[in-house]
Structures are given as structure tokens and as C-alpha cells.
């Protein structure tokens, strides 16, 4: 084979694993992209910040929706359907959960925010969705979420919906969960 042909061949052969790796690189890139732009309703944990706290906030409605993923038998509902909150102030809302089965189970709640351009202005200081919940048979709990809606929220948004879907993750291996925990921090 000619020297130039070998060069072309090597270049192309190198390109294949690179593109394979690029496919996998899309996974973290996707998360980074969502975090930077605040789309996809993904809200990550934020630090307490005094700068965001203001007194001249406006009233908006914060609605809560809870959904059980397919066969998840727990009772899961917001303590209040709607909170009237003020932007630039920390508020705490709670969700009620009860393990209605006769075995110990582990759950994970996955959040979503609508409209999606509100997500970047929603700062969560604490959220039960940042960790897993383990409940014994019949055990119940109130799960808190402490959040602030920044004053920079576009003025056309008067209503934010915060929804959680709760998944049964009892059968997931410890290893997967440890990995997931790291991602969230």
C-alpha cells in the first residue's frame, strides 16, 4: 500500500474510536448544557446567598404536582397545592409520603420545572430530591424543599409549577446510587 494511503487509513481508523467516545461525551455535555442554560427543568443544589434576598419582590404562585412512577405504591402528595410566595425570599414547602407496603423501600424523586425558562431562577437550598428516601413498612414522613425564586424571574411569569415524580429504586444496587449521589453534589 502506498504511504499516503496508509496515512489516510490511519486517520480514519483513529476517527472511529474518537466519534465513539464523542457519543459518550454527549452524556456529560448534555448535563452541563442543561445546567448552564437551566433548561430541561433540571434544578441543581445552590448555596445560600444573601445577594438573592430582597424585600422588593413580587407575589407569584408556586404550584406543586406529585406523580407516582408506574407501580410505585407510596402515597406521595404536596402538603399544599399552591403557595403564594414572594420572589427574593426563602420559602419552605413540604411533601407528605407514606410507605403503604409491608416492606422497607427506597425512593428517589425526580423534579421538573415549568415553564422551563423559570428553572434557572429557582434556587433550591435543600430538596428531598437531592437524596434517596428509605421508609419502613407503614412509615410516613414530611419531606422539605427550601427554595427561593430570584427577583430576576421574567415578569411575564406569574405562575411556576414544580413537579416531582417518585420512583421506586429499592432494587438498584448500592454502587449505582453512590455514583448518582456524587453527581448531585
Amino acid at each position: 500500500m502506498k504511504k499516503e494511503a496508509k496515512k489516510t487509513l490511519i486517520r480514519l481508523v483513529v476517527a472511529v474510536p474518537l466519534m465513539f467516545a464523542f457519543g459518550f461525551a454527549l452524556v456529560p455535555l448534555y448535563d452541563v448544557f442543561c445546567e448552564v442554560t437551566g433548561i430541561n427543568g433540571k434544578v441543581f443544589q445552590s448555596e445560600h446567598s444573601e445577594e438573592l434576598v430582597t424585600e422588593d419582590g413580587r407575589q407569584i404562585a408556586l404550584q406543586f404536582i406529585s406523580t407516582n412512577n408506574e407501580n410505585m405504591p407510596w402515597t406521595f402528595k404536596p402538603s399544599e397545592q399552591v403557595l403564594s410566595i414572594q420572589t427574593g425570599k426563602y420559602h419552605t414547602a413540604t411533601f407528605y409520603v407514606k410507605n403503604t407496603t409491608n416492606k422497607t423501600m427506597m425512593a428517589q424523586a425526580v423534579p421538573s420545572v415549568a415553564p422551563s425558562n423559570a428553572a434557572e431562577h429557582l434556587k433550591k437550598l435543600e430538596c428531598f430530591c437531592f437524596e434517596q428516601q428509605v421508609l419502613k413498612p407503614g412509615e410516613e414522613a414530611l419531606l422539605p424543599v427550601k427554595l427561593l425564586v430570584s427577583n430576576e424571574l421574567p415578569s411575564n411569569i406569574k405562575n411556576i409549577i414544580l413537579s416531582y415524580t417518585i420512583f421506586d429504586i429499592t432494587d438498584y444496587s448500592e454502587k449505582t446510587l453512590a455514583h448518582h449521589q456524587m453527581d448531585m453534589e
Partner: protein
Amino acid sequence: MSAVIENHHDDHHHGPAKGITRWLYTTNHKDIGTLYLWFSFAMFLIGGAMAMVIRAELFQPGMQIVEPEFYNQMITLHGLIMIFGGVMPAFVGLANWLVPMMIGAPDMALPRMNNLSFWILPFAFFILLSSLFMEGGAPNFGWTFYAPLSTTYAPPSVTFFIFSVHIMGASSIMGAINVVVTIMNMRAPGVSLMKMPLFVWSWLITAYLLIAVMPVLAGAVTMMLMDIHFGTSFFNAAGGGDPVLFQHIFWFFGHPEVYIMILPAFGIVSHIIETFSRKQLFGYSSMVWAMLSIAILSFVVWAHHMFTVGLPLAAEIFFMWATMLIAVPTGVKVFNWVATMFRGSLTFETPMLFAIAFVVLFTIGGLSGLMLAIVPADFQYHDTYFVVAHFHYVLVPGAIFSIMAAVYYWIPKWSGNMYDERLGKLHFWLSFIGVNVTFFPQHFIGLAGMPRRYPDYALVFADWNMVSSVGAFLFGFSQLLFLFIVIKTVMGGKKATDQVWDGAKGLEWTVASPAPYHTFSTPPKVD
């Protein structure tokens, strides 16, 4: 001629080996091209039989013939087999036959890899088809295999599906590497890049697309495999993953894949229209630039397949405009073909009929694509039969008509015999009428709201579905005539001249008909 060869028994330039080993061990580009073409024909008939099952079930509303679970397996396998087994190997087969002859090279650059890339394909499809007989049935999640349908809720045979996609991908990648190395390094002296025949150009671009996106597809199915068997959560929301991420990765592969299936068709049609118009092709360099721009744009439009997943407004606007931008280079090509025909001395042999039908019907498919690109309209059309009509218009009278045109156009060169023109024309008209009767009504039922991928439908859609099914049976059974014509031509017929068509230009028409086993062992002189 043969007497001369017999006198040189120890001459290096021998003919093909005898028996089955000729095909198993062959490294000859013409043999491998033939293998690819027959393989894709077999897959076309199998995938077509599945389409017949689908249209038979949809002939009337209600459940008649198959179970819904089996119907889902049919739509999945029909898509996978037609795309990965029918269209793609047919184009690779044409590339094998034609690229070396068109650029004056003695063979492909990597003949042994060429053999390997073909011979792993039958195994891939054996694995895929064998899943029909497995417990839980074949893959049933549609050819786009969206997670979590294809992970959490998939039948156990999904693992076999994943491995078969890996093998198909490896085959395509090897084929593509071979094409690029051949074109970049083995052109006869004088064949500069901007003098290459357009089919060669179209394949060079296609090969780069394949190398860029097939590994991404391999990555997507590998992530599925890990989610299913190794406890990862790439696409599982409960574990921190995201099902929408699957769609992004899939369509990052999937949209360039669409152009992989149409660019070689552009090349073929350019040659045929040029020949039967007896004129020089209008706008050669704009054709090349148009194909390059289509290829580049194909990487930034993927999310138009997922307008309804809840993209932010800015993304929807970007992907809408980027998609519409593709109409510009595509329009350049269509106008160039029309301009080539304008005031030409046209004759309408079978390849030309298929090529003209390609231009008209592919344009219809392109325009319905533009309608789908409009975000608010797409919210209505998404996942309806309008989408089914759109992509079948670009793939059946688009890609597949171009392959049929290519077979009629070059088979005299391959076999040394002319095909039966009367039967060829009959095949064309049956296919042309069949394809339109099948897919045109699907625009109507799609706009009226019939969703795709269901084995049953509301009574209001009954009439057009029946028309569509009748057209499908006509189109499907006409392809047996095509099989007959090809076999008849290979077996014998009127001998073809070397040039075959009086307007034909290009190096492949300077060699004897049938093309000798080895061509251009010494490079031809090209001015």
C-alpha cells in the same frame, strides 16, 4: 481474447476461482459489489414481506390478521431491515462496483477488509431475524428504539438486537473507510477531485458521514446494553439519567443517516439524467458544493425530530431555520437536474424513467419535509401518518428508485446483456403507480390525525387505508417482476456494447461489457 489468456497460465491476471469459495474468499471489488447487491435484494424482499403484513392488517379497521404485539415487531423489523439491510448495503454494493471503475483504479484500496465488511453482514441480520423466534418475540419498540421502551420495557431479545446493530455498524464503518482510502489515493492520473464523477463525490461525502455517525450509534446501543445489564442509568430517570438524552444521541446519528441514504442517490440520478439528456450535466461544481453543504447541515438539525419533547423556544427556532436552510442546496440540485434536461435530446429508457420519477417524487417528499420543519405545524403532524408519508416518499421513490435506476443503467456493463426494455418499462409503471397509490393517501390520513405505529384505527380513516393497502400490494408484487428481469438479464439477452448508452460518459463505459474481472490494472490516461 480468452485464447490469449489461456496461453499465459502462470500469468498473474487470472479469472475468478470456481465454486462457493470464489464468493467466500473473494477480494475482488466486482464480486463483493455483486454480493452486496444480492444481499440487499434479499433483505428488500424480506422487509417488503413485512410491509405486506403491515398493510394487510391495516386493510380494514379492527384486528384481523396479526396480534398487536406481532404488529409492533413487524414495524420495527421492517424499518431496521429496509434501512440497514436494504438501502445501505445496496449503495455500498454500487460503490464497490463503480467507484474503482469510475476513477480508473484496479480495485478497492483494502480488498481483504472489503471481504470482511460484507461477510459480517449476513450474521448481523441472521441474529436480528432470529429474534422473531425467541421468547418474548423480536424487538417491538420501533426502528428508532427510544429508551425506556427499548431498555426497561424491552423484550429479552433486545440484547441480540444491540449486537446485530454493532455488527452492522462495524460493517458500514469498514465499508466507508475503504471508500475514502480508495477515492483519496487511487484515482488515475488526471482525475482531480473536481473532475471526479458525481457518484464518486456523493460516496466520498457519504463515507465521511458514516465514519462520523455510525460510532455514535454504536455508543447509543452500548449505553442501552449497560443500562439493561450493568445497572447504569444513562436513560433511566430514577437513577439520574434522562430518556430525552437518548433521543438527542439517537438523532445526532439519525439525521446524518438520512442523508447517507440519499446522497449516493443524488450521484446516480445526476449520471443517468446527463446520459439520457445527451448534454453535459448542468452545474457540476454547484452539485458538489450542494452535497457538501447538505452533509455539513445534517449535523445541526437533529432536534427537528423531537420538537414535541419540550425544547426551549430558542432551540426550536434554531432547529426550524437550520432545517429549512437545507432546502436551499437541495433546491439547487433539483433545478440543476431540470436544467440538464431542458432542451436536451431526451429518450425515456427505464433508468431515465426511474430517474425522472426520482426528481419529481423526491421533491414531493422534500416539500412535506419542509412542512414538518415548521414547529407549530409539526406539533400537529408529529407521529402521524403524514410523517410516514414524508419519509416513505424520500426513501422509496427516492433512495430505492435511484437504486433500481442504477441497476437498469449499469446492469449491461455488469452482465454484458441488455435487460428487456419492455419488461423494464412495465416494472417502472407498476412501481410508479403502486408507490403513489400507497403513500399519497397517507398524507391525507396523517393530516386528519391518524397516529403511526398502531395496528388499528378509527373508522374515518378506513377508505384511504384500503386504497393505501391496495397500492402497497401492487408495489410489493411488482418487485417480483424486478427480480425476474434481473435474473433474466444475468442469464442472457441482447449483447451490450461497451458504451451501452450512446450518451454515456465516464471511464466505466470504456471497458468491455461485461466488465472484465480485472479492470485498469494499469491506470488509464485521463485528460
